[in-house]
C-alpha cells in the first residue's frame, strides 16, 4: 500500500519514475540466479580456511606436514606465504591476511589450503597443527576503554573518541537548567547482516602474472586497493569482476576470502574457488557494533529540548574495519533530527577480542537512534505529551542545524511527516477480532495464545541518516556510456564498477540512461575494474553517486551529439560518427572533517529522514510479540523506481524489526554461541507485517534529480518504533534490544 505525493509522469519507454522490474528478480525466486557460490571452472581447486578456536592466543608454531602430505592437496599457506603486505583494512591496515604471531578473535584465519575437492581441502585444514598459548581476552568494551586494559593493538584500545560540544557545553560539562530531565541507559546487541549468499569467489591466475577475481563484494576497487599490495602486484594486474551477490548490508565491505583465493591461485597456477558455509560465514564477516549508551535529555516545561548529553560506547571487536566512520556517525547524528541548543556527546569505538564489527545498514546511526528515540518517549511521558507531539515540537526543518552545526539546507519536513504518519488509519487489532487467525497473534501457529495475555501497543520513532560518505572523504563514482547503432538501431551501453547487491541499481542505471538519451535500448555491462571506481554500494549512495555519474556521462554524450545539429536524428548522426563514448566522474559536494574537540563541521553530504509507527500485539505473560503493522513515511526527494524503492523500505524496516525482536549474535567470553540460522533468527513472513507507506518527494537541489538515498533510513526508526510499541503494551522499560521473551515475561 503506497501513496506518493508527487506522481511521476507515466513512463512508456522505461525511464526514471517507472515501475521497471529487476532483471534478477524472477531468476532469484526460481533459484536460477547464478551467485558467486555457483562459479565453476573445470580445472579449479577448492580453498579452505583454518580458523582460530581461541578468542585470544599467541601462536607458538604451525605444523603443516600432515596437511601437505595429503593426496589431492596442492597448497597449504600461512602468513609466511603472503607475497606482499601482511595486513589490510578499510581505514587502518591492522588486520592480518593470515594470523602472524597471535590471534585476536575466535574464527580469525590462520592458514589456507587448496585441494582438488572441497572435502579434501577441509580435511587438510583440520590436519594443520597450530600450537596456541591462550591469553586472557578483553571482551568487555567498558574495560577496553580503561587505559589499564591490555592493548590489543599498539596504541591502545580506543579506536576513536569523537566528542560533540555545542552551546554551553563548549565551556564545560555542566548542564544548563531544565524543567524536566530524563536519564536512560540503553544497550544494542550484536546484529548480523545475515545475507543469504555466503562469502564466495573464484580466483583465476593469468598468463601475465596477474590474477582475475570473480567476487561478490560491495566495492570492487577498494577490494583491489587492499588486494594488490597484499599480493605484491601492481593494481593493473589484479582485475576484479562482480559475481552474483546474495545480499550485502555492509558485510561485504571488508575483505573475506579475496586475498586467500588469489594467493592460492597464484601459488598453484590453477583457478581456486572458496565458498564459506553458513557457520564459517558468521566468522567470515564483520557484524553490527554492539552499543552501550547513556543519555540525558533536559527540556523546558513545554517539552522543548534544552540539552542532550550522551555517552555512546561501540564495541569494534578485534580489528578497525569501519569503526572510525561508525563512531563519526554515532557522534554527529547522536542527538537525532531535533533542534537542540546544547549538546554534549562522547562517542567511542574500542578494540576488544570480540568478533570484528564494521559496516551494517545504518551504521552508528542505528545504535544512537535507539538511544535518543527511547529518550524522546521518556521525555514525552515526563512532560505529559504524546510521543508524536514531543517529536513535532523539537523536529528539525530546513534551516535547522544538527549536532555538528551543519545547516540543514534542503527540505526536511519532519513535523509534516509525523503528522501524516499519525493521521494514517490504524490497523485492525487481531486479538479483538472474533475467532482470530493464529497467524495474526503472537506465537503464530505455534498456538501459544488464542487471545489470552495479549495487549496492544503503538509506538513512534524517527531517524536521521547521512547519505554518501562523510567527513572529507573523496567520494566519487565513474561511468562510461557508449551510444552506437546495433542492427541499425541506437543502443546504449552503460559500464560502471558499481556493485548490484540486490538493491536494484542495475535497473535504475538503465532507467537514467533512457531518460537522458531518449534511447529505449540500454544494456548495463557487468561491473568490473576495467572502468574507474564507482565507490561502495554502501551509505545509500549508489543511485546518487553512480546514478549521478551515468547522468553526467550521458550529458557528455548528448553534448557531442548536439554538435551535429538538432535537425539530424540520432540514427543519422550515429551512422555518420560511429560509436560515441564518454566517461565521467561524479562527485558530491565536498564534506569536511569533524573538529576533534567539538565535533563541529559540515561532515555530511545529505541527510535523510524516515519515520515509523509500529502497532504490536504482545503476549505479556509469555513475552512473545507480533508486529501487527508498520507504517512509514520517508522523504526520498525523487522516486526513480517505485517498486524497487518500496522494496528497500520494506527490507530496511524488516531488518530493524529483527534487531528489535530477535536478531543477536550471542557471545560468551568472546565466543559466538549461535553461528547458524537455527539460532540466529531473522524475521519470517509471519513476523514482518504488511506496511503502510507514504513516500514523499521534496527534492534536494544538490543531488541528481533531487533524489535522496533511501536504502538505510528505514532501518533506523523501525527498531525504536517497535520497542516503543512493546513498551506501550507492557509498561516495561525495555532498555535493551533485541527484546527477549524473558525481558517481558519475567520483569
Amino acid at each position: 500500500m503506497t501513496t506518493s505525493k508527487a506522481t511521476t509522469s507515466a513512463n512508456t519507454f522505461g525511464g526514471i519514475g517507472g515501475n521497471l522490474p529487476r532483471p534478477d528478480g524472477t531468476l532469484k525466486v526460481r533459484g536460477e540466479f547464478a551467485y558467486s557460490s555457483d562459479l565453476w571452472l573445470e580445472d579449479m581447486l577448492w580453498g579452505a580456511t583454518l580458523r582460530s578456536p581461541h578468542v585470544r592466543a599467541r601462536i607458538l608454531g604451525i605444523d603443516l606436514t600432515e596437511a601437505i602430505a595429503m593426496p589431492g592437496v596442492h597448497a597449504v599457506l600461512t602468513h609466511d606465504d603472503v607475497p606482499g603486505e601482511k595486513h589490510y583494512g578499510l581505514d587502518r591496515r591492522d588486520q592480518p591476511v593470515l594470523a602472524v604471531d597471535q590471534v585476536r578473535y575466535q574464527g580469525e584465519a590462520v592458514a589456507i589450503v587448496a585441494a582438488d575437492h572441497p572435502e579434501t581441502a577441509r580435511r587438510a585444514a583440520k590436519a594443520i597443527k597450530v600450537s596456541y598459548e591462550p591469553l586472557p581476552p578483553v571482551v568487555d568494551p567498558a574495560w577496553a576503554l580503561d587505559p589499564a586494559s591490555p592493548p590489543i593493538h599498539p596504541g591502545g584500545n580506543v579506536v576513536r573518541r569523537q566528542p560533540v560540544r555545542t552551546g554551553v557545553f563548549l565551556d564545560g560539562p555542566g548542564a544548563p537548567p531544565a524543567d524536566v530531565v530524563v536519564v536512560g541507559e540503553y544497550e544494542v546487541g550484536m546484529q548480523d547482516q545475515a545475507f543469504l549468499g555466503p562469502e564466495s569467489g573464484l580466483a583465476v591466475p593469468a598468463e601475465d602474472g596477474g590474477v582475475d577475481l570473480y567476487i561478490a563484494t560491495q566495492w570492487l576497487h577498494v577490494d583491489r586497493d587492499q588486494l594488490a599490495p597484499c599480493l605484491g602486484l601492481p593494481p593493473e594486474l589484479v582485475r576484479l569482476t562482480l559475481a552474483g551477490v546474495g545480499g550485502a548490508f555492509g558485510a561485504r565491505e571488508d575483505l573475506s576470502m579475496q586475498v586467500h583465493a588469489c594467493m592460492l591461485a597464484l601459488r598453484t597456477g590453477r583457478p581456486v574457488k572458496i565458498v564459506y558455509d553458513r557457520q564459517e560465514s558468521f566468522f567470515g564477516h564483520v557484524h553490527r557494533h554492539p552499543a552501550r549508551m547513556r543519555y540525558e535529555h533536559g527540556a523546558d516545561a513545554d517539552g522543548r529540548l534544552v540539552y542532550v548529553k550522551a555517552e555512546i560506547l561501540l564495541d569494534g571487536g578485534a580489528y578497525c574495519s569501519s569503526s572510525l566512520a561508525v563512531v563519526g556517525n554515532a557522534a554527529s547524528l547522536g542527538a537525532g533530527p531535533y533542534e537542540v541548543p546544547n549538546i554534549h556527546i562522547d562517542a567511542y569505538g574500542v578494540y576488544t577480542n570480540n568478533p570484528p564489527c564494521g559496516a551494517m545498514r545504518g551504521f552508528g546511526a542505528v545504535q544512537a537512534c535507539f538511544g535518543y528515540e527511547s529518550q524522546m518517549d521518556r521525555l514525552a511521558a515526563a512532560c505529559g505529551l504524546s510521543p508524536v507531539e514531543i517529536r513535532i515540537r523539537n523536529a528539525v526543518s530546513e534551516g535547522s542545524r544538527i549536532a555538528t552545526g551543519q545547516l540543514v539546507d534542503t527540505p526536511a519536513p519532519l513535523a509534516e511527516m509525523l503528522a501524516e504518519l499519525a493521521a494514517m488509519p490504524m490497523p485492525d487489532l487481531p486479538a479483538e477480532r472474533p475467532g482470530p487467525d493464529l497467524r495474526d497473534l503472537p506465537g503464530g501457529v505455534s498456538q501459544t495464545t488464542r487471545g489470552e495475555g495479549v495487549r496492544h501497543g503503538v509506538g513512534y520513532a524517527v531517524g536521521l541518516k547521512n547519505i554518501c560518505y562523510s567527513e572529507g572523504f573523496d567520494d566519487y563514482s565513474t561511468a562510461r556510456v557508449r551510444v552506437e547503432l546495433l542492427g541499425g538501431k541506437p543502443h546504449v551501453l552503460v559500464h560502471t564498477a558499481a556493485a548490484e547487491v540486490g538493491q536494484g541499481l542495475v535497473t535504475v542505471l538503465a532507467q537514467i540512461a533512457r531518460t537522458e538519451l531518449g534511447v529505449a535500448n540500454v544494456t548495463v555491462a557487468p561491473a568490473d575494474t576495467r572502468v574507474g571506481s564507482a565507490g561502495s554500494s554502501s551509505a545509500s549512495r549508489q543511485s546518487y553517486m553512480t546514478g549521478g555519474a551515468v547522468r553526467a556521462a550521458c550529458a557528455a554524450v548528448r553534448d557531442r551529439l548536439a554538435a551535429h545539429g538538432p535537425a539530424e536524428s540520432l540514427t543519422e548522426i550515429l551512422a555518420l560518427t560511429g560509436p560515441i563514448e564518454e566517461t565521467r566522474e561524479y562527485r558530491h559536494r565536498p564534506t569536511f572533517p569533524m573538529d576533534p574537540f567539538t565535533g563541529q563541521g559540515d561532515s555530511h553530504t545529505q541527510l535523510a529522514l524516515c519515520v515509523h509507527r509500529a502497532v504490536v500485539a504482545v503476549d505479556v505473560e509469555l513475552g512473545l510479540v507480533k508486529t501487527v503493522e508498520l507504517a512509514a513515511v520517508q522523504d526520498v526527494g525523487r522516486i526513480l523506481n517505485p517498486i524497487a524503492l518500496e522494496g528497500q523500505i520494506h527490507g530496511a524496516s524488516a531488518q530493524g524489526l529483527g534487531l528489535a525482536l530477535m536478531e543477536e549474535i550471542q557471545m560468551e567470553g568472546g565466543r559466538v554461541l549461535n553461528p547458524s540460522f537455527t539460532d540466529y533468527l531473522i524475521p519470517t513472513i509471519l513476523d514482518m507485517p504488511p506496511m503502510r507507506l507514504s513516500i514523499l518527494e521534496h527534492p534536494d537541489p544538490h543531488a541528481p534529480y533531487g533524489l535522496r538515498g533511501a536504502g538505510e533510513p528505514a532501518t533506523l526508526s523501525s527498531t525504536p518504533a517497535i520497542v516503543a510499541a512493546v513498551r506501550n503494551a507492557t509498561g516495561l522499560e525495555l532498555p535493551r534490544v533485541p527484546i527477549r521473551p524473558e525481558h517481558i515475561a519475567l520483569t
Partner: protein
Amino acid sequence: MEFLRPASWAEALELKAEYPDAVPIQGGTDVMVEINFDLRRPARLLDLNPVAELSRWSTTGGVLRVGAGMTYTSLIRELSADLPGLAQASRTVGSPQIRNRGSVGGNLGAASPAGDSHPPLLAADAEIEVESRARGSRLIPATAFYQGVKRSALAPDELIRAFHVAPATGPQYFSKIGTRNAMVIAVCSFAIALHPRRRAVGTGIGSAAPTPRRAGAAEEYIAAELDWDSRAALDPRVVARFGELVAQAASPIDDVRGTADYRRHALGVLARRTLTWAWHEHMRERTTT
C-alpha cells in the same frame, strides 16, 4: 559413503542387521544437515524412502498404526481429526519444505528433546513399533523411548517402523514457544490430551529436560480434580495448581534459546492455557452430543 537402497522392509532389516552402523535416512532434514555441517560422517546411509509402507497409515482394532516415514504434510492432511495434538505440532515444524520431507519417524530417530512430535505422542500414550531381524518386532511406550539428549531405546540393529496410537477421544492441544512466529526450534513446548472415557489426562513437555517427558503428578492431580460428568467451569485455583505442577515437572537449562526460569514460567502458562482450551472444548462437545 555407501548408499543402501532397500526395496522392502524385510530388506531394510537385513541391511541394518548386516551394517548396524548404517544411518537410516527418511526425509533427511536432520541427517543431511549433520552431513553438510560435517557433524557426522556415516560410512553408509540406509535410504528408507523406497519402502513405501513407511509412508502409509492404517487402523487395526481401533488403534492407528502410522508409518514412520509419513511426512508432516500428509499427517496434517490425513490425520488432523484423529490426532489433533500431533497435527498441531506438525503444523509448527520448520517450513513447508521441511514439513514436506520431515517425518515423525525421523523426529523419533533423532530423539532431540526439542522434537515437536514428542509431547503429543507422550500425551496420547503412543507406542513406538521397532524391529530388528534378530529379535523381531517390539512396542516401546513413548515414555520409555526417550532415554537422554538425542538418545533413544532403539538398538543399533533396529529400525522404527511405525507408531501406534488411539484416535483422540477428547480434546488435544499443542503449544510451542519460539522467539519468532514461525520456523523456530522450540524454546519449550507442551501437549495435553483429555481422555474423557478413562477420565485421564495425558501431558508431554518438550525442550525443558534432557528428554521429552510427561508431567505425571500434574496429570494425576488434574484427572482427579476435573468434574468429568458435569459441565462445571474450571476453578482458576485448580488451573493454577496444574500449571505449577507442570512447571515443576521440567528440569530446564539456560541456553541460547532461553533461560531455565523462562522455560519453567512459560510451561506453567502453556499448561494453564491448553487445559482451559481443552476443557472448554470438552464442555462444548458434551453440550452438543
